[in-house]
């Protein structure tokens, strides 16, 4: 019985092999070698599959942060974050992925947020449907770099964190997949439609009324408008990925927000976001860069603050980063420069960071970095500080 099975297997294998025209003598001996290994592998896979049709897997990351030398903040520990990811897989076509972020805030209280939670359906070899709350597919940092064991510096680039210029997360649906081009050239894509961002009218007592952009996904479409967009990644060679992303839609003032009542009847505006990103790996050198710009169109009939915010609102951020791991050691050096430009002039600044990392393992890293924030407004002091972070991805 077993033998018959094996003969069938090798017959199928040789047909497969000849069909793809790879069977020269060299590969034939390789194939013979692999065949016995594959037979063992099949037994392995079989025993795994028999008892576990559904699979639950937990991954995620944790980090502990500290700061020193800043004029704005006392020295000390600044964060303890635990971000578990749950994967629930049914057959090889359905995956639930969800990430919580649990963090201790300044007052010692725990904050829990759902970073993302999606149900993913594999439609075919080149396309999957992703539905739920997902990290913004615009650019790379949010979706691919923000976990602390991946980010090579203890902080997010200026403008790519909360309250910055890059969109954070979205509630909607995506189609994602990969397309082989010629040779090792390939492309990937993510197309999405989502609730998109909303405008929030901020009226702190005693301060000027401002319009702010809220890009964190909410479970209701606050402004009733959708956004349509996507990202295309192109890899001419496996070491280089170039990405272009963008989205279009209308944006309005979110209803039901505490302070937005001030802006009742505020007309919707045009919303666009554009992104460009690149990553290049050469041995132990990694170069990474990204540019994102969100634009809210002008609106002559804006009533907020007696018509003070009728003009176009532009939120721009970019960064460029180089990281080099000294070959055959556990040491890595990183430098990054970046800039943020928004309608809220107080936040606008350029930033540079230089850091040293020690990799206990590829996913257990201690990082120390020096960062300088140089504010555009000369009346605001520059901020210089050391950040230290211990990160563990699991």
């Amino acid at each position: 019985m077993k033998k018959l099975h094996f003969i069938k297997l090798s017959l199928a294998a040789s047909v497969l092999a000849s069909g793809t025209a790879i069977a020269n003598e060299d590969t034939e001996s390789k194939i013979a070698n692999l065949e016995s290994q594959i037979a063992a592998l099949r037994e392995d896979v079989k025993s795994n599959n028999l008892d576990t049709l559904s699979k639950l897997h937990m991954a995620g990351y944790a980090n502990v942060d500290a700061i020193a030398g800043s004029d704005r903040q006392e020295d000390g520990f600044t964060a303890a974050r635990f971000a578990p990811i749950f994967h629930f897989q049914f057959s090889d076509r359905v995956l639930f992925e969800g990430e919580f972020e649990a963090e201790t805030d300044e007052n010692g209280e725990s904050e829990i947020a759902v970073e993302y939670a999606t149900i993913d359906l594999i439609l075919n070899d080149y396309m999957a449907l992703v539905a739920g709350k997902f990290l913004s597919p615009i650019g790379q940092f949010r979706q691919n770099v923000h976990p602390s064991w991946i980010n090579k510096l203890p902080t997010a680039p200026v403008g790519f964190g909360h309250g910055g210029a890059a969109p954070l997360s979205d509630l909607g649906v995506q189609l994602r997949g990969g397309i082989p081009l010629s040779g090792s050239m390939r492309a990937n894509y993510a197309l999405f439609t989502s609730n998109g961002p909303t405008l929030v009218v901020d009226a702190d007592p005693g301060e000027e009324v401002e319009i702010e952009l809220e890009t964190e996904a909410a479970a209701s479409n606050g402004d009733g408008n959708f956004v349509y967009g996507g990202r295309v990644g192109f890899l001419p060679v496996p070491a280089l990925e170039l990405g272009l992303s963008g989205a279009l839609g209308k944006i309005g003032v979110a209803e039901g927000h505490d302070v937005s009542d001030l802006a009742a009847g505020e007309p919707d505006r045009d919303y666009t976001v554009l992104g460009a990103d690149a990553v290049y790996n050469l041995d132990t050198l990694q170069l990474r860069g990204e540019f994102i710009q969100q634009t809210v169109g002008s609106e002559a009939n804006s009533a907020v603050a007696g018509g003070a915010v009728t003009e176009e609102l532009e939120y721009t951020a970019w960064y460029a980063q180089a990281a080099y791991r000294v070959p055959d050691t556990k040491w890595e050096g990183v430098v990054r420069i970046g800039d943020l430009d928004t309608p809220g002039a107080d936040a606008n600044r350029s930033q540079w960071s230089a850091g040293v990392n020690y990799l206990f393992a590829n996913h257990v890293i201690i990082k120390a970095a020096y960062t300088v924030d140089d504010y555009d407004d000369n009346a605001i002091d520059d901020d210089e500080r050391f950040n230290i972070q211990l990160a563990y991805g699991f």
Partner: protein
Amino acid sequence: MKLMNRNLISNAALMAALFFGGAGSAAAQDADDPMAFVRGAQSWADNCARCHNMRDPAEFRDDFWEPSVLHMRLRAGLTGQETRDILTFLQKANDPADNKGENK
């Protein structure tokens, strides 16, 4: 019962392989494809250290790699074929018994 199903599937896969001469890409065939491991090793090297440091194949058990690689398929925009090949590679490369065998 399940074992019998598996036999049926393997028979069907054999028929399919004979008919299509390996042109198909059904998952059932891939485990029988001797080149999947080789392709998987290449795809792994090409793709799995682009966004983050390379994770050690030995870090996870076979059944843990499945959802993880599916997760990465979605992140990285891999094709189904690349995903299956990489999974084959990882599930093979994390096998301590096998490494011993190769080093003999």
